[in-house]
């Protein structure tokens, strides 16, 4: 995780340089945020799935039967 490559599209020059401390820190922050977003999305999906399952139990029907009622195929 130490090298950055920059291709200058105007001059054709290719620069290979070490990542700066700021870039490394920024990458780490982005990674942490991305992981937090992923965890939040999974948690939301789980809540939705649980709510759907609970509703099916309450209605006494299966998921396939619910799809039929809603016009799904």
């Amino acid at each position, binding site marked *: 995780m130490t090298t950055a490559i920059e291709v200058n599209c*105007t001059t054709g020059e290719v620069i290979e340089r070490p990542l700066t401390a700021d870039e490394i820190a920024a*990458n780490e922050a982005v990674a942490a945020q*991305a992981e937090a977003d992923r965890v939040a999305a999974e948690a939301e999906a789980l809540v939705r799935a649980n709510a759907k399952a609970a509703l099916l139990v309450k209605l006494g029907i299966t998921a396939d039967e619910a799809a039929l009622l809603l016009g799904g195929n």
Partner: protein
Amino acid sequence: MPSTYTLISSNVLTSSAASVTFSAIPATYTDLVLRISGRKDDSSVTSGVFFTVNGSSAANYSLRRLGSNGSTASSSGTTNNTEWYTSTSGNGATSNTYNNAEYYFANYASNANKTASAFEAMENNATTASIQTRAMLRSVTDAITSITLSDATSNWLSGSSFYLYGIKNS
């Protein structure tokens, strides 16, 4: 291939790199096409790519994703994120297998918000191969002058290739 489809610049990695940037992109085309054949050094089959433009990590990147990995179809979306989170092959894919991806930036030099589409295929000689498509929006009107492909946790492997094309509408 239409004559308006012109290679602007390219890079084929001869050693691993954390990020690849195309800078000083000329504003003389109508659209941009970025073609990637990539593989990263983490152990997954499908690896993440942080996709940013103009060196900005401001929270104005949104996307909608639709994909499948051979057993599960899925979709997701992010709004006003600090990057477009896209995909390439990881080092857990079949050896020496690189993904194919195309990113299309429409009207990249205009003064409107920037939109793009993505198509990514992560080949793998197993059922966990995957395909992803994305509709992408950056809510900023600046012309796109640079594109960076990076990731906080893994490197692009040697052999990964990046080709940037310009398309003129006439």
